[in-house]
């Protein structure tokens, strides 16, 4: 079975079906098609986990077909221990988002659902594409549905945010196309795996590094090219924020491990100090910035940037512990940030405000919601036995091994992360009932409850027993590190 193709094309086909058959007057049909499509999209990815062979670093479930023979561009798909988990994560989050938007979205339901489904297929495509051009097409195409999601279903300042998001990421990735074409010229192939073997001088590697780095650093986002993210999150609808934080940021980080590290090992080692510095700036600087945000979504957006700092930090420590910590952090952040944005969405749907100052004492009227919010906040603050702890813990340990002060700066997240997250919880959840709107709040409905309960189970499950997640990565990460260690000069 071509599981990977199915993972790409089922959601896209479902999205198109929603567009064709969905009617504004009868949104029910659109919702159900979307739900079935998302569910089918998730189901076809499960065999990837079940039949995955963790003992090889070779690509698995490979599909290959000619696409543009003139330039040897191929429809080449495959997953290894690094990318497989993200396909599952993405398909899972898509299902969550469809479910989360069930009653909440009343305006242009069909288009909304279609945008998410199509985006889901495109994201899966970027995670499994092994051909440079194919990757580029997926990578750029997914900007369009996200742009529409922010621009159409977003908040009052959505146009500014959408354009900022679009231009930032588009400009970032322009040079990447040049880099891809250059690599084709020297290797006469668009296969990414072929590029792992092509020798490149340090000067060439550095130029290519700049080109790829701009594309991926904007997506991650790394400091100082991060300012599009808070704006995009603030204006995006809840579902958009969930996908943005949980998945799209991961594509940037994925680019580092799929392209930069193995194709440009010498440049990576040469510039590792630079990346590590930027990552630590993200952890510390952004931690302080998050502290003073008055808008909950902005706060969580900054918190995402800070958490993604651990990802880039972990990759550029060049150790098994650091890289696996970074990958675990990516998956965990997918769960935790999705949950945090859903929590804000739950409150926003009732009060129509994201401002911390408009809340206070929510625990009095929404006790069940408060329990979830505190749990996810603790996960965001990296409490052990939640998934948020595992990645940060491994990366900090790996950092101390390289240099005590690297670990020292990275570990400040223990204090900063707790400070900005729990201070928000204190002002929003705890305290006496702050105003009439909070007094009127109704606790979680059944749909919201199960949505958060599923995420809670994953967050705790991954925190208590992260071994299965890490086990599938071992061989691929070891192979990746072997590539980085081998000079191409």
């Amino acid at each position, binding site marked *: 079975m071509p599981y990977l193709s199915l993972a790409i094309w089922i959601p896209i086909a479902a999205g198109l079906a929603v567009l064709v058959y969905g009617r504004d007057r009868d949104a029910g049909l659109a919702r159900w098609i979307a739900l079935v499509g998302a569910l089918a999209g998730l189901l076809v990815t499960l065999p990837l986990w079940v039949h995955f062979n963790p003992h090889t670093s070779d690509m698995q479930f490979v599909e290959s077909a000619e696409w543009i023979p003139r330039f040897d561009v191929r429809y080449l798909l495959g997953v290894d221990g690094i990318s497989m988990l993200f396909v599952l994560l993405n398909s899972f989050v898509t299902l969550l988002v469809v479910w989360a938007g069930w009653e909440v979205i009343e305006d242009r339901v069909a288009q909304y659902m279609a945008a998410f489904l199509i985006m889901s297929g495109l994201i899966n495509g970027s995670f499994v594409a092994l051909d440079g051009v194919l990757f580029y097409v997926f990578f750029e195409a997914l900007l369009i549905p996200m742009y529409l999601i922010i621009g159409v279903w977003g908040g009052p300042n959505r146009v500014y945010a959408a354009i900022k998001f679009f231009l930032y990421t588009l400009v970032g990735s322009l040079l990447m196309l040049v880099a891809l074409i250059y690599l084709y010229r020297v290797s006469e192939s668009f296969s990414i795996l072929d590029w792992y073997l092509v020798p490149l001088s340090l000067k060439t590697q550095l130029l290519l590094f700049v080109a790829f780095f701009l594309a991926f650093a904007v997506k991650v986002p790394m400091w100082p090219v991060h300012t599009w993210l808070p704006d995009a999150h603030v204006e995006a609808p809840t579902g958009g924020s969930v996908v943005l934080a949980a998945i799209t940021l991961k594509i940037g980080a994925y680019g580092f491990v799929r392209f930069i590290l193995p194709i440009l090992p010498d440049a990576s080692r040469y510039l590792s100090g630079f990346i590590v510095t930027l990552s630590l700036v993200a952890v510390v600087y952004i931690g302080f910035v998050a502290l003073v945000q008055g808008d909950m979504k902005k706060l969580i957006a900054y918190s995402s940037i800070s958490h993604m700092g651990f990802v880039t930090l972990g990759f550029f420590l060049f150790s098994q512990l650091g890289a696996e910590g970074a990958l675990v952090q990516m998956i965990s952040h997918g769960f935790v940030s999705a949950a945090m944005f859903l929590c804000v969405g739950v409150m926003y749907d009732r009060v129509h405000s994201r401002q911390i100052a408009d809340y206070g004492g929510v625990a009095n009227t929404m006790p069940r919601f408060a329990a979830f919010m505190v749990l996810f906040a603790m996960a965001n603050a990296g*409490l052990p036995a939640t998934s948020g702890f595992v990645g940060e813990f491994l990366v900090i340990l790996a950092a101390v091994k390289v240099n005590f002060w690297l670990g020292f700066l990275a570990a400040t997240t223990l204090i900063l992360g707790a*400070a900005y997250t729990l*201070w928000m919880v204190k002002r929003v959840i705890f305290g006496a009932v702050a105003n009439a709107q909070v007094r009127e709040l109704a606790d979680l409905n059944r749909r919201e409850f199960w949505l958060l309960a599923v995420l809670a189970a994953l967050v705790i499950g991954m925190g208590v027993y992260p*071994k299965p997640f890490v086990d599938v990565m071992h061989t691929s990460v070891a192979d990746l590190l072997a590539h980085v260690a081998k000079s191409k000069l």
Partner: protein
Amino acid sequence: MTMQQLYLLIPLAPLAGAVAVGLFGPKLGRGLSHWLCILGVAVATVGSIVVWRDVMAGARFNGDVYTWLQSGSLKLAIGFLIDPLTATMMVVVTFVSLMVHVYTIGYMAEDPGYTRFFSYISLFTFSMLMLVMSNNFVQLFFGWEAVGLVSYLLIGFWYTRPTAIYANLKAFLVNRVGDFGFLLGIGLILAWFGTLDYAQVFARAGEFEGAKLNLWGAAEWSLLTVTCICLFVGAMGKSAQVPLHVWLPDSMEGPTPISALIHAATMVTAGIFMVARMSPLFELSDTALSFVTVIGATTALFMAFLGIVQNDIKRVVAYSTLSQLGYMTVALGVSAYSAAIFHLMTHAFFKALLFLCAGSVIIALHHEQDLRKMGGLRRYMPVTWITALVGSLALAGVPPFAGFFSKDAIIEAVHASRIPGHGYAYFAVLAGVFITAFYSFRLLFLAFHGKARFDPAGQAHSHDEHAADRHDAGHEAGDEPDAHGHHGGPPRESPWVVTLPLVLLAIPSVFTGWTYIEPMLFGDYFGGAIVVRPEHAVLWEMKNEWRGVAAFVQHGVLSLPFWLALAGIAAAWYCYLVNPALPARIKSAIGPVYTLLDNKYYFDRFNDTVFAGGARRLGGFLSRVGDATVIDGFFVNGSARLVGWAAAMLRHLQSGYVYHYAFAMIVGFFAMLTWWVGR
């Protein structure tokens, strides 16, 4: 059932209770909820006693339950290490926890969060057991942070009170500062030892005695000194040592049962336990031990002073806890680890007892916590009075109560030590004895003796006073229904669910001293669990002079600490019963000193301004200037404007007028011609 299964059952039984009641508490109802939780903890208590007896008979266990994570050759596991140190902690934790569970039935009787409270304290018991039973650093860190989480939830239990949610955030963040150091210590261990398993680390500790770490410039540090100080920073947070002690007094915002369980008997002693567990590492660094000694001594003395000026009954006991934790830390610093654990054990009993007595008084007086509004309660509450007297005598260190033995052992050990800083520590622990006796009996006299200063016929205080009282801010708002009603009447002795735990805690507060001093300090009680180098072996020197309990008491009665304790009690008696006008006169005579004490040495104000305020100001600056002005304003929107400006400029070139284009052509033609000619 095999012992291994029992080891697993002990932490899981309270967890099962916590999860069941946490998820379904409201459906299960109060009765079923509290019996489920009590059952879980009772199973753990009985199991712990069985394990303890087994260990005393020579059994040991060190094994993994499951592999938590494997990365490369590094295996991180969840597992148990069962030895005398662990077994002792298990018994103390589960026994005090069981007492507190029973007591809670009475104390929280009409609180709307009744089942939630039970769920939390059972969860705490699970976390604490995971912490003490761990055989590796990962699980230790898990338990470490998990007890912090439960402490956070319980301090903020009455979450409508502004003071409570301030205190719980503060507690969590200060503990995170400690955990920050702790995690770095763990990182150093992994970096050098390549494993996080206790047994492997301790076995190889000697190899790294000479290892150097280059931290800054050319200066080299001993690896083990840096590692141990990092680990100890964690202990400073959890065990509330200066300057990370600031959270503990505020934690009194939580309900009294958890003040007894978490903030006196068990969680705050986790740091003491951890350092004792790490004795094979700390023994290799005199610098780290010296650091521990000085910090502990400072805490022991200076926090005791603060106990004198507090008027809130719980805060007096809280400062007393800080000071006693200082004593334990000093004991660690002078390598008298077993004395520290011995004091930890006796302190757990008598301090939990004192807190529960305070709670009994508080409910009898309808949530009055101000000592100035108490007095004469011994007539109304005889059981509480007698048990509080036992607790106070134990705390003050009067023979034959437990505290006498454990405290005297620490003082003797400090006296025998030669670690740098021991002179200061000896002075601090001696002076501390007088002050401890003074504030403990000040509390006892103010609460139970003298004239009644509450209104014996009716409520302890009017509603207006209530609102003015900072500690009861949420109370007045009606968010915490008064569990015991404002139905007036004189104070009554508490129900049996409250007094029974008091009596059961008073018993070990009396006898654990003389029964365990010999095996724990001078015998082979701990087996190989605690390692002491010959040159640090202060207890060994004391053992040479050991002539049995009777001789120890006889010697104690003839030496300075005992007389200091008696002097403290006498001074309290004179100041608060004989001549009650005196304290006020002293207060005005020593004005500035009193102000300093009343403001708790200004630690809180300093932290609020410099750290909390500084972080907010820095964040605001980075957000405003860094993100908004420089990155967004200059670079992002700047590039947008640049593109716009360039487009506007270029637009002028395409004016559409033929003569403009013709003119440009002519200029271009001449330019080319010039270039061609000049070539």
